[in-house]
């Protein structure tokens, strides 16, 4: 099972967190020295696969169930209880039912995946996730042949989620993928970061990670997964339909109606952090472009 996809920059896997930080600081110093020398294109994009610090990853979050500010999730997510946790897998599956988180974990192979994360708000991070391929979890329930899409739902527990008192979006948060996207080896359910249990503000105890799509597609604290033959509704599309569509693939050539998506800034670089070019499919073009062959990506953004 699993290990169907391996990172091309594998040497990072064995680097301890402290060494990442040292190297990052050296790089930041060098970048400041170079000043505004311009953007290095592909070379810089590879450099940026340097994972962000634990603090960057856990203190700068969008998780509106805990508030709309970037620091709200880190401040409020401690209220969330994640034990016990079950995931209901239902719809077009052979064995629908409630799967205890522990039972899922026993059946899965946990591996590390260092992925870029590109937020639709034009900032990015690199996160060393621990998790398993979504395909393996779906196979626990047995996907039926007629299924075409996968719908996901986040926990809605207002007494533990102060942000849900405001109807910023229509709770609970829901997301969806086409079945082939869901079964792609890059698509994982993350349960950890830097080898530690995933913090609540990052979507404990398990959250989707689809690295070639904008971050909001990677739904957090998942309680339900439904196989269906219809395109499922997605929260941001319901909230602002002209700004967010179903696919939401990272695409530097298709601007958000209110800002450009051509460049992004990696979090954690301080005051003199440089913008870097956004890569098609967030740098995973080689792996996922075949999924969208013949599709008009401007129309289906």
């Amino acid at each position: 099972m699993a290990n169907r996809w391996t990172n091309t920059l594998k040497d990072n896997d064995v680097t301890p967190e402290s060494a990442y930080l040292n190297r990052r600081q050296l790089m930041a110093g060098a970048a400041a020295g170079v000043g505004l020398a311009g953007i290095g294109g592909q070379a810089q994009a590879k450099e940026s696969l340097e994972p962000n610090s634990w603090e960057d990853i856990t203190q700068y979050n969008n998780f509106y169930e805990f508030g709309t500010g970037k620091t709200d999730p880190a401040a409020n997510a401690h209220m969330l209880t994640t034990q016990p946790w079950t995931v209901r897998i239902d719809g077009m599956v052979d064995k629908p039912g409630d799967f205890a988180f522990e039972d899922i974990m026993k059946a899965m192979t946990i591996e590390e995946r260092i992925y870029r994360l590109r937020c639709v708000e034009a900032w990015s991070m690199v996160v060393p996730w621990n998790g398993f391929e979504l395909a393996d979890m779906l196979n626990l329930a047995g996907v039926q042949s007629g299924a075409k899409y996968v719908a996901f739902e986040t926990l809605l527990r207002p007494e533990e989620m102060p942000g849900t008192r405001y109807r910023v979006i229509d709770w609970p948060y829901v997301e969806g993928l086409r079945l082939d996207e869901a079964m792609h080896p890059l698509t994982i359910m993350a349960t950890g970061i830097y080898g530690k249990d995933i913090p609540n503000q990052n979507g404990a105890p398990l959250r989707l990670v689809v690295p070639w799509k904008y971050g909001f597609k990677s739904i957090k604290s998942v309680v339900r997964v439904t196989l269906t033959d219809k395109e499922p509704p997605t929260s941001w599309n319901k909230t602002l339909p002209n700004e967010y569509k179903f696919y939401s693939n990272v695409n530097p050539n298709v601007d958000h109606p209110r800002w450009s998506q051509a460049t992004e800034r990696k979090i954690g670089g301080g005051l003199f952090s440089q913008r870097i070019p956004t890569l098609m499919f967030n740098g995973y073009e080689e792996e996922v472009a075949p999924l969208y062959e013949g599709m008009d990506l401007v129309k289906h953004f």
Partner: protein
Amino acid sequence: MSLVDRINGFARKVPTWPLYIIYLLPVPWLLYLAQTGGLGREPIKALEHELGEIALQLLILGLTITPLRRYLGINLIKFRRMLGLLAFTYVTLHLAVWVVLDMNLLWSQMWADVWKRPYITIGMAGFLALVPLAITSNNASVRKLGAAGWRNLHKLTYAAVLMGGIHYIWLVKGIQIEPLIYMAVIVILLALRLPKRKAPQRA
């Protein structure tokens, strides 16, 4: 002595130059915070927003001078030029952070943003409206333009403040309360000037 008299007496005695220094202290303080993590994991946006908000506050303070005198008899007019120049300084710093730190001098992307993103368009228009006001904020310009001409030119402030308020409302995600409060204050302060328009103005 009434409270108003006491305020006016005190205002007469206070020199303006130390206030320039006090009002500029947030600049090194914010830069220090940005460098030491006090503005969060993404200090560029945070710095940009702080500078913009201070600029808007200073513009609004500038709008209070006339109603305070007209309705309460409090005369703080000697501080108005200072408020205007400080506001312009903060707007310029706000713009500079956007151009240099946020957009990294990516001129073509910025140029596209100015035309395609309404909140940037209106923000830039507001800045441009303030430029002639900053240039003519000196006694020589008042003499050269004449009191009436100078006053007419400086009515551009109203347009600039309104554009600043709209810029703030448009840039946030969805509808948020803080920019709407700023806008309400701006509209009230501008409305307080309306009735006087009908009567001929006395110098």
